[in-house]
C-alpha cells in the first residue's frame, strides 16, 4: 500500500515549525502534523486521496520530547512516547494509573512509536471510516468520508444528529481527565492552556478545539497526593485492540463525596463527569449520571447493549478497587 505524495518537513525547533506553517498557510497549502504516525499513517495509506500536501514531523523538535517537573505539576511534551510513559519510574510513583493505561495500549511496537500528543489527538474510529477504499466504495459515504449522513444512526432515530458519531478511542484520555490535566496549545502567535475536559468536541470529525495550525505542545498534570484512580479497559484481545471501553474513576481523599469519572470508546467525545455521591451507594449515583450520556452504537466488535452493560460492570470494578484500596497508593 503506497502513501499518497506529500512533502515531508522535519523542523528542529518550534520556531522553524511555525515559520513553516505561516509559509504554507500563505500559499494555502494543506498540511498535517506527524508525530508517532501510528494513527495517521494507516489512515493515509487507506485513503491516499486524502493525503495533505505537507507532513510536518514533530520528531526533530527536542523540546516536545521532554518531561519537566515544576513543583506540583508535570509537563509532558507532546512527542513523549507511550512506552516512555509506561516505563517512567517518576510518573509511575505519582500517576500509576497513567502508566498502567499506557502499558495496556496496543502493542510494544505501537507504544514505542506512538506519543501522548498523538494519543490525545487520535482520530475517532468507526467501521465505516477505518476501511480500505474498496470497502468504502461498497457503501454510501458517511460524514467522515465526505457524505451526507451517519450510517450508524437509523433514519428513524429521533433527532438525527448532523454530527459524525465515530467514537473516541484514546486510551490515556480517561485517566488524564480524572487527573484534571490541562493541555498547552500554541499556534505560533498565542499560547493557551485549557483544561483537557474542555478540549474535545461532540463531532467525530472535528474532535477537538484545535485551530488550523495550532499545535498541542504538552500535557500538564497536577500532582495531588490525595487522588486515587482506578482504570479499566474492555477489549477483545489483550494486545492490539483499541478500547471498546476505557473507564477511569477517581476521587480525592479529602473530597470523598465526589467521584470523577471519564469514559472513552462510546461517544465521539470522551465523557467526563464530577459526580456528588453518597458513600452508601457510589455505584448507582455514578450510573444515574453517566449512563444517560452514553451512546454506544454498532461501532465495535461488542454489540452496543453489551458495552452499555459493561460500563456498569467496569464502574463497579473500579469503585470496588478504590474502596478496598483507600489508603494505598492507588495502584491496582
Amino acid at each position, binding site marked *: 500500500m503506497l502513501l499518497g505524495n506529500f512533502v515531508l518537513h522535519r523542523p528542529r525547533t518550534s520556531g522553524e515549525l511555525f515559520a513553516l506553517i505561516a509559509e504554507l498557510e500563505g500559499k494555502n497549502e494543506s498540511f498535517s502534523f506527524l508525530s508517532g504516525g*501510528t494513527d495517521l*499513517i494507516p489512515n493515509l495509506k487507506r485513503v*491516499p486521496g486524502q493525503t495533505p500536501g505537507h507532513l510536518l514531523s514533530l520528531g526533530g523538535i527536542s523540546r516536545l520530547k521532554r518531561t519537566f517537573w515544576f513543583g506540583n505539576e508535570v509537563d509532558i511534551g507532546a512527542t513523549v512516547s507511550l512506552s516512555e510513559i509506561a516505563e517512567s519510574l517518576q510518573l509511575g510513583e505519582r500517576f500509576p494509573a497513567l502508566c498502567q493505561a499506557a502499558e495496556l495500549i496496543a502493542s510494544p511496537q505501537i507504544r*514505542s512509536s506512538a506519543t501522548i500528543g498523538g494519543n490525545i489527538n487520535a482520530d475517532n474510529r468507526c467501521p465505516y471510516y477505518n476501511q*480500505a477504499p*474498496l*470497502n468504502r466504495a461498497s457503501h454510501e459515504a458517511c460524514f467522515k468520508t465526505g457524505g451526507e449522513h451517519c450510517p450508524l444512526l437509523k433514519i428513524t432515530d429521533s433527532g438525527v444528529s448532523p454530527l459524525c458519531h465515530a467514537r473516541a478511542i484514546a486510551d490515556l484520555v480517561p485517566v488524564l481527565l480524572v487527573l484534571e490535566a490541562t493541555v498547552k496549545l500554541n499556534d505560533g502567535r498565542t499560547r493557551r492552556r485549557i483544561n483537557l475536559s474542555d478540549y474535545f468536541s461532540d463531532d467525530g470529525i472535528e474532535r477537538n478545539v484545535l485551530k488550523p495550525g495550532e499545535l498541542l505542545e504538552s500535557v500538564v498534570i497536577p500532582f495531588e497526593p490525595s487522588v486515587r484512580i482506578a482504570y479499566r479497559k474492555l477489549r477483545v484481545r489483550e494486545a492490539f*485492540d483499541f478500547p471498546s471501553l476505557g473507564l477511569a474513576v477517581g476521587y480525592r481523599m479529602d473530597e470523598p463525596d465526589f467521584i470523577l469519572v471519564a469514559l472513552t470508546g462510546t461517544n465521539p467525545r470522551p465523557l467526563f463527569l464530577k459526580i456528588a455521591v453518597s458513600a452508601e451507594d457510589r455505584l448507582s449515583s455514578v450510573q444515574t449520571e453517566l449512563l444517560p450520556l452514553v451512546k454506544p452504537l454498532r461501532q465495535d466488535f461488542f454489540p452496543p447493549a*453489551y458495552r452499555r452493560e459493561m460500563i456498569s460492570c467496569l464502574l463497579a470494578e473500579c469503585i470496588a478497587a478504590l474502596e478496598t484500596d483507600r489508603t494505598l497508593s492507588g495502584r491496582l
Partner: protein
Amino acid sequence: MQPILVSLNVNDRRYDRAVLPATTLLEFIRDHLGLTGTKCGCDTGECGICTVLVDGKPTLSCLLLAGNVGESKVLTVEGVLGSSSHDRVDNARSILPLHPIQEALVEQGAIQCGYCTPAMVLNGVAFLEKVKKQGSLPGPDQIKRAISGTICRCTGYTKIEKAFLAAAKSVLKRSGLDGPSDGTPPEVAMESRQSIEGFLHIGKPIPLLSAVDKVSGKAKYTADLKLTEPLIVKLLRSPHPSARIVSIDTKGAKNLSGVKAVLTGADFERSFGVLPISRDEAPLAKNVVRYVGEPVAAVGAIDERTANQALLAIVVVYDRQEPCLKAEQALEPTDNPIHPELKKTTNLHKSVEQTFGDPDRGFVEADLVVEHDFTFPSLSHAFTEPHAVQVEIDGRGDLTVYSSTQVPHYLHRSIAEVLAIPMDRFRVIKPHLGGGFGGKSDPFAHEIVAVKFALVTGRNIRLVLDRDEVFYTHHGRHGTSLSMKLGVHKDKGITALSARMLIDGGAYGSFGVVTSYYNGVLLQGPYKIANFSFHCDRVYTNKPMCGAMRGHGGVNPRFASEVLLDMACHDLKLDPCAFRLGQFLEPNSRTANEFRITSVGIAEGLNQAMARSAWKEKHRKLPFGKGIGVACGFFISGSALPIHWNEMPQSTVRMTIDYDGGVTLYSGASDIGQGSDTMLAQMAGEVLGLPLSMIRVISADTRLCPIDYGSYSSRVTFMAGNAARNAAIRMRKLLVKAACALLEHPLPEDRSSVETVDYFRQGGRRPKFEESYLGPNPDYRDGVRISEGRIQTGDGRSVGWLEVVRKALDHKGSLETSGVYISPKMGGSFKGSGAGLSPSYSFTVMISEIEVNPHTGRIRVERVTCAHDCGFALNPLAVEGQLEGSIHMGIGQALMEGIAYKNGATQNASFLEYKILSAHEMPEIILCYPNSGETEGPFGAKEVGEGALAPVVPSIANALFDAVGVRLFDLPLTPDKVLAALAQQKGEN
C-alpha cells in the same frame, strides 16, 4: 514529486538513497536496500510482522517514514546474524553465528512458516537486553508481553514463548547471572514420549531444515524475489455484491504513461475452478460481478504508483442487481440466479444426502434424543503472508511462475487449461510460503491474470495482494447453519445421528462440493454410529467464495455432535469421558459408510488426557465460573481419491545421488511451514543411515519434481512420506549391492517386497501395483548397517560411503530411484462413497479448562490437554507445533473469529478487526502421545495437521456448561452471548 535524500544507519552501516518522501522505512529497507528479511503482513500496523529495532526498541517499519527516522539506528534481522556487537552462539545445525534468540527459536521448534520469525527475532533481541539489565529470569507474563505485538498463525506462540525463556536462561548463564525467576517458568525440556530406540532420525525432535534460513532472514518468500524490472500488476475489484457490467472503459488507463497493458474479462475465454466439476470462475469478471472484491480488470504498469493511478482511470458502469446474501434466501426460487449457466431456479450449488442403517429405528431405541440448531460464521485462514505471484519470462517465451501456493500442480494445470499454454512451456515454483491452512490450495484468479500479463507484454510480472484483498479473496471456512439430532442409549451407545446442514459457499464453487460431503462423512468417527444420515446443501450467495480451511468441512458439524453428546451425557447422568470410552471405533473395522478404519489410538488417548487433566477430580466439581469440557475428533490422512480422476500414484518422490555422495530428493509436495521437506529428509536419512546434512530436498517445483497433489487434506506425511521412504529403500538396494561387490559379500536377503500390510484384514483391496511397487511402509532391514559414513555388511567388514557411491556409479553415471504411494482400493459402491475415504484416520481427544467471568461473560481458556493419535510422531517438534497451532485456531474460532458482512462487503478485512488470538489469549497446553503405530503409514505415522482443530471448539463450549451451566449454540462464544444466556438462566430459575 521530488525525491529526497535519506541517509540511514541500518545494521551499523550508512545508506544514502534518494526516495520519495512517502517511502516508509519498510519500503526503504526492502525495496531500496534489498534487505527482504523484514516481511510485510498488513502494511497498516496491525500485525507486527514488519518489526525492526529503532534505537533498540521494537518498532513497526510500515508506519515509520524513512525520511523521519533521523539519526536513529535501525536493526533488521539481517543485522542480528553475525554482527560482532551481539552475542554469538555456535550452532551445530549451521555454520552461521547465531544470536541466542535465533538459536533458541531454531532449537525449540518455534519456527514453522517463518513469516513472523524475523519480527520475533527482533522482539527477542530487545527482550534479552531487558533480561540482561534486570538480571533475573523473566516470568511468563513478561515473555507474553515481549511477543504480544506480533501475530503468529502457525505456532500458537507456545514454542516461541519456550524459546524466549530458553534464550533468557542462556544469556543470564553467560553473564553469570543465574538469578531466581520472578514467576514460574514453563517446562522447557523437550522429551520424546515414545520409543525411538534404534532410530537415527525418526521420532527425534528436529528443527526444520529451513529454520536457520528463516531465523536469519535469508529465506525468500514469493514477494522477496527480485525479477528484472517486473511490471506491477494491480486488480480493480467490484464494489458491488451483484451487478451487471454495462461497460468497462480502459482508455484512460491505457493512455497513462507507464501503463503497459490493461486486461478485462473479455481477454479470457475459459473459466476455472479447483474441482473439475465446478469450473465456474472467470479470471476477470465477465459481464457480471458476484461479490464485493471480485476482480474486474487489471493493469500492468512500470511501478505501483502508476498502476494505482491506472486503476482509478478505469471507468466501469455497473447495473446493480438485488444481491442474494443469506444462505436461507439462496434456497428460494429466483428468476435471477447467481449462476444462470447451471439452469437452476434457485441458488443451490450442491445437495448431498446419505443414509446408512436405519436412523428412525435408532432414535426409537434411544434412551434420549437430543436435538438442536447451530450457527457458525465464515472464517478466514488469516495466514500472515499475503498472496503473491511473480512471473519470469525468458527469450524463448518460456515462463517461470513463482507463487505462494499450496499446490503447484493444480496451478500448473489451471494455467495451462485457462490460458491454453502447453504445460511444458512454463514451470511453477513455490518459494518459501508464509502459511496456508487451506487458503492457498486453490488456483487463484490473480495467478492466472499475472501469467496472462507476461504473455501479453513479454515482461516479468509482479503481483502482491494487499491485506484487505486477501480477505476478499477469502476461500475460508463456510458460514454454516445446521440442525442435528442425536440418539443415545446408556448401554448401546449412540443409536442414531442425523444432521441437516446449510453451508454458505459464496459466489463460486472452489472446494465446495468436497466440503458438502465432508460436513457429513467426517461425523462417521471417532464413534461407532451404525444409523446415520445427513443432508447438506451448499448454496451460492453474493459474497466472497468459501473453500477449504484447516479441518475442512468437519469442524462445524463436530461442534454440534460433541455438544449434543455432552448434553445427552448430562441428562443421562453419564460421565462424558467414560461414556465416550465405550463408543470408539475399533481398530481394523469399518464404519457404516464403509470407511476402512486401521489403527485407532483414541481410547489410550482419552485415558492419558483424563489423567493429565485430572478430569475425574474436576468435572462437575469445580467452583462456579470454572469448568472443564471434553470433545473428540477424527480426520483423514489425505484423500484416497484424487480430484482429477487418474491412475497415477498420489505421490511420487525421486531421489538422486551423484559423485559428491550427497542425496537429493525431488518432491512436488509443498512445504508451507508444516515441515514437509524436513519430514522427507528424515525418511531418506533414516533408510540410508545418513546425517540430514547430507540430504537436500528440492520440492514444489513442477519442472524438477514429479507430480504430487500438494499440501492439503493432511496428506503429505502419509503419502509423500511413504513415497520418499520407498525411493530411499530402492536407493539403499543399489548401494548395498555396490558395497557387497566391493567387499565380495553375498547380497543380503531383500525383505522390502514382502508385503507388510494385510489389505484383506485391513478391509481394503490391494492397489493396482506396478511390478516393482513396494507397498506402504515396507521393511527395509537387510542386515547391512549404514552409519557414520560407512556401509557395514553382516560379517562386520565395512567400506566408506563415497567409495560405495562411486562404485555404484560405475557404468551408470547417475544414481536415480523413485518411490510412489498408491492408496489401496476401498470404500463402498454407493453414490458419494469416495468422499472422506482415506488410507488412515487420525483421532483426537481435547480437554479444555476455562474460567468464565460471570460479570463480564468473558471466557478465558486456562489449560488445554490434547491427545492426538498421529500413529507415531516422526518429529515431535513438528507434531507439537501442528497441535499447538490447531489449538490456537480452535480457540480463535470458539471465542472471537468470524467474518462480518454488511450488504455483502467484508467489514473486518484487516488483522485489527478480524481477531486472531494474541499471545495473551493462549492457554497452557499439555500434549499426550497415544501412538497407535499405523501399519501403512511411513514409520507408523498418520495425520496431525488438521484433525486436532475441530474438537477444541466444542470442548470449550462443554467447559462453559460445566463452569456456569449455560449452553451456547452459535459461534463464536462471545461475552455478550454468555451474559445473555446467564441472564436467561437466572430468569428461568
